[in-house]
Each structure stands twice: as structure tokens, then as C-alpha cells.
């Protein structure tokens, strides 16, 4: 069986008693405290909760950006604890797409270059990258902003570039950390619509949000408080 040959009745991502602790001086904070969840292929799951509830930390752990203090993150039933660093990087590159809260674009690169970078890393082919990057930016409505750098784009445009970048390697799981934060309502609506579209195309979506009206657009909501699922 291929690693990503996931059946519908088996969770694509699962956590078992997941804990993430931070220690600053003598103060220990449990950002995630014994979380066990399952996410199935093709689901659109929203993780909501108040600020500081641990939802972003959970997303970092689920997307293999960070390692848990204890507990397990299973991807297609496989415990990722023993994954090497290059393997985790490879999964983030090829199978996961991640939209960061503050867009997280590379300031020296144009919109097109930001989008094509993961594909270039995956294939090494610059010509194809440009073609695919242009297509994705057109898809998120930024065809006329290909050669603008992040500083020349509005917040909403930057977030759309970030979404296009997350999609460039055709991810099977799309993570979005507060994708509408700092955006006006119209722009937020545009972003959520794009994410819904992705879900309709069969991509598994995990979206962190503290805005209930956007969380309700998901198929399922996981609510967090004080690092626990409530």
C-alpha cells in the first residue's frame, strides 16, 4: 500500500494524547494538553477557540512543523515520531500545504516566485514552475500581480499568494492558520470561498479560526480551550 493511499474509513491524520509543553524560565505552559482527534480524507475541519487556547500549536503539530512533547501524530496510521527531519520536510513539501497566519511570504521574491518555489524545490524545473505558478495566481485572482513583491500587495492579496503557494504541489492536506486574520470582511469572505472550493475538489482542509462564522462553514468544528478539545 502506498503511504498516501488512504481509505475513507481510516483517518488521514490522527493524534493520540498529544501534549506540547513550553517552558519559559520556571513557568511551564501546556499549549496542547492530551488532545486526541481524527481527521478523515476529504474532510473540512475547523479548529476554533479563544486566543491562547492552543489551536495554532495543534496545527503546527498536525502539519509536522513542530514535534510534540509527548503523544503521537499519526499520518495514515503511521506514527510520525520516528520520521527523520528530511522525511518531515518532504511531507511538508509534497503532501501538505500550509497557509501561515501572517502570510509568511519571502520579501525578496515576487508573487510568482513565492508561489513557484515549493514546486521548483520538488521538480527542479524552472520553466514548468513559472507556468504552474501563473495558473495558480490566476486561479486566486492575481493574474495582474505576478511580478509584484509582497510589500507591493495588500493583506488579502498576500494571503491569496500564500494560498496559491500552499497549493502548488497539489497537497492532500491543506492547513490554514487563521487565514482571515487582519483581513476585512469582504476579503475574508473571498479567502474562505477559495478554501471551500479546495475542499470541494477533494482536498482535506484543516483551518484554525477564532471567528465562529467562518468555523461554521466547515463540515466539523473542533473547539479548543486551555489546550484541550472541549
Amino acid at each position: 500500500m502506498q503511504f498516501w493511499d488512504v481509505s475513507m474509513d481510516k483517518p488521514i491524520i490522527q493524534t493520540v494524547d498529544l501534549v506540547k509543553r513550553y517552558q519559559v524560565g520556571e513557568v511551564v505552559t501546556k499549549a496542547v494538553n492530551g488532545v486526541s482527534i481524527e481527521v478523515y480524507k476529504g474532510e473540512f475541519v475547523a479548529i476554533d477557540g479563544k486566543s491562547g487556547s492552543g489551536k495554532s500549536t495543534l496545527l503546527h503539530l498536525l502539519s509536522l512543523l513542530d514535534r510534540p512533547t509527548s503523544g503521537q501524530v499519526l499520518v495514515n496510521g503511521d506514527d510520525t515520531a520516528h520520521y527523520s527531519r528530511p522525511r518531515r520536510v518532504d511531507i511538508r513539501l509534497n503532501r501538505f500545504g500550509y497557509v501561515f497566519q501572517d502570510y509568511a511570504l519571502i520579501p525578496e521574491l515576487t508573487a510568482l516566485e513565492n508561489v513557484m518555489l515549493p514546486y521548483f524545490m520538488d521538480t527542479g524545473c524552472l520553466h514548468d514552475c513559472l507556468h504552474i505558478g501563473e495558473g495558480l495566481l490566476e486561479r486566486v485572482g492575481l493574474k495582474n500581480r505576478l511580478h509584484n513583491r509582497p510589500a507591493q500587495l495588500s493583506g488579502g492579496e498576500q494571503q491569496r499568494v500564500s494560498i496559491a503557494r500552499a497549493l502548488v504541489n497539489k497537497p492532500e492536506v491543506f492547513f490554514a492558520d487563521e487565514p482571515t486574520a487582519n483581513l476585512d470582511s469582504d476579503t475574508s469572505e473571498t479567502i474562505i470561498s477559495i478554501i471551500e472550493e479546495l475542499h470541494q475538489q477533494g482536498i482535506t482542509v484543516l483551518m484554525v479560526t477564532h471567528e465562529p462564522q467562518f468555523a461554521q462553514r466547515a463540515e466539523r468544528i473542533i473547539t479548543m480551550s486551555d489546550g484541550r478539545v472541549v
Partner: protein
Amino acid sequence: MTLRSLRVGFFLALRYLKRSSLWTSLLVMVIMLLTFLNVVVVRGVLVGLPVGATATYAREYAGDILITALPDQRHIDRSVLVANTLSSLSGFKAYTGRYLTAATVHANFQELPKTGHLADTVTVTAVGVVPEDEDTVTNISGLMAEGRFLTDTDLKGVVMGDQLLEQYAGGGPESGGTPETSGTLENVHPGTKVRITINGITGEYTVVGVLDGKVGENARRIFMHEQQLRSILNRSEDKKDEIAVRLKDGVDNVAWRDAFKNLGMVNYATIQVPGEAQGHFLDEVTQTFSLLGDGVGFVGVVVAAITVFIMIFVIALNRQKEIGILKGIGINRLAIQSSYVFLALFYATVGICLGILLLYFVIAPYIAVHPIDFPFSDGVLVAPLFDTLIRSLVLIVTTLFAGYLPARMIVQKNTINAILGR
């Protein structure tokens, strides 16, 4: 995967260079340029000191070939035969024959010495030359600090080496010395009359010039017309002490010396190129300066490594968040690290290329025309292209490591902490 990572690294470095501040890039390249010059030029000048000394020795004194007496002889035997044979070999241009003897020069003889002081005298080597011949070989007339060189009619004229005179060498009353301790003569200029005693015969001569040479042999000599000196010494033309030979431009003096020796002249004289005539001491000085130059060069390379390290560390530190983002979206470490190595290599390569252009098209030609005026030689720049390329390569390899280390340190930081600036 490795090649792909390097391509991505190159792409990122190129974009960074293209869009970073021009002034910052220029500043870094100038630093690399200065570092290169420190590694290559400082050593080149140091090594150039003894090389320049040999060149000066050849130009002002020895010519391309210096012929002296055999070790067990007082003079060059069969001097006329030796001199006449010179022109039989192709490549010969000119020669000057010299007669040497010990002499005492007495200045200020019109005045009585102060109480307790001896007369103002120095012991010197007197050299008898045919003025025109000497000038053809050593261009001595161009080395005058005061006055002029001898002419063919100056039978009672004399040229003094500058180290015999108080105003050039010090040691006189002005610097607290006395004539008998200084070894220099006071207040002697062109037009001054001096008494010279040679072989027990004292004559009065007029100083016509003061020689400002850089070769020690000349600095404490006096030059007279050879006719005058030979008549005092009653020496035949066949008993010269030195013959300095000038060859035509481009003639290999070592090969010419060997050919001349093979004509049997080695039986009558010691035949040497200037480097040999100067003796092993200068070889040792050259080696010492070369070692010093290597030491300075090594320090230069270390400074370059530290400079590049700090530069890349600061750049990478300021871009921690971007590095975190790159890792977050799946760009591997090799790609990120190599982007900084490419960046460092770019700065180093541009700095070195500018340095090479500056060195070979500005500094070296300038110093060749205007040698550095060191007291004992005209300093030249010794920077052979092959040596320079080797040093450039060492600098580039050093840069590679110095660029890699800080990038590696920053890239190792936890991805999320880097992105969130924790």
C-alpha cells in the same frame, strides 16, 4: 535531490542579490576586495623588497653580469682580454671597468680641528671609472643628489657617496656626534675642495656631485676618473677590479653568464649574476620576507574568514523568519544553506575579480613605473599570476566555509520559533 537543492539555493541567492540594497552589496564587495589586496598585495610588497633590492643592485651597481677577481687574486687577471671577449658574445651591450683602492678623504682641511677633535676625515673606497662607460651601464648620472657625475675632463673632480656626508648620513655635530665618531664629513657639497690620500699620495680634488644611490657598495665610495686613479696607483689597464656588464634587453643573463664562462673566462675572473654577487644573505632575506608575507597572508585569510562569517551571520540572523518560512513550506536545509554559501561566494568572487583587475591593471603597472621608495631599494610588487590565483582559490574555499557555518547555525533553529521570532 542535491543538485535540485543547489539549484534552489542558487535561485534564492540570485534573487536576494538582485533585490537587496545595492550599497550593502557594494560595501561587502569592497570589504572582500580589500581583503584580497591584503592577502596578495601586502605579501607582494614584502617579497618585493629584497627583489627590488636585487634589481636596484643590478641597475645601479652590478649590471646584468658582475665580473670580479678570483678569490685568490687581487685584481681581474687579463682584464683587457676579458673585456674584449665580452663583445664576442651576442646580447652584449656595454661594460664599465672599475679600479678600486682604499683612500682617505679629508674635508674642511682649511680649518683647524676643535680642541680634542681629530681632523674631518673618512676612510673610503675610491673607484676609478671611465665616466661615460659607467653612466652607460649604471645610469649613474641620474642618481645624483647634488651636482653632477664626472665627465671625461674631470681628472681632478670627485663624486662622493651620500653616506659619507653628514647631511645625508647624520652622525655629525648636529646629531651629537664628532667627526671622528661619525664616519661622515661635515659641510661637503659640490664645489667643496677635499684632500684625498691614495697610496700615500695626497691630492686636492673638487667635489662635483653627491651620489644618492640605494646600493650600499656605492654609498660609501668616491668616484674618480680612472686615468687619475691608475696614474696614482701606477696600475696597468689589465688590472681592473670590477667589470659590470649590461646586456641587451630580453637577454637571459644566467644563460649569457654560462656561455661567457664556457669561453674560458672563468679561469681569469669570478663571473656572477647580481643575485649571486649579493651573496646568500639576500636569499635569506628573501626567504624571511616570503615567510613574513605568508604569515601576513594567513592572517589576511583568517580576517577574511571572520569577515565573511560575521557578514553571513548578520544576513542570516536578520532573515531568521524567512529561513523558518522556507523550512515550513518544505525547502530543505541544503537549499537554504547553499543560498548563503552562494551569496558569500558571489561577494568573494566579485571582490577577488575586482582585486585582480585592480592589481594587474592599476597597482602593478603603477608600482612598476613608480617603485615604492624604500631606503635600501626600490620596492617592486611581486605577485605572479599563478600565485595570485592560488591565493584567490584559498580565499574562495575559506569563504565557502565561512559562509556555510553561520547559515548552518541559523538554519538549525526550530522552524516554528524562527517563524514566530521566538
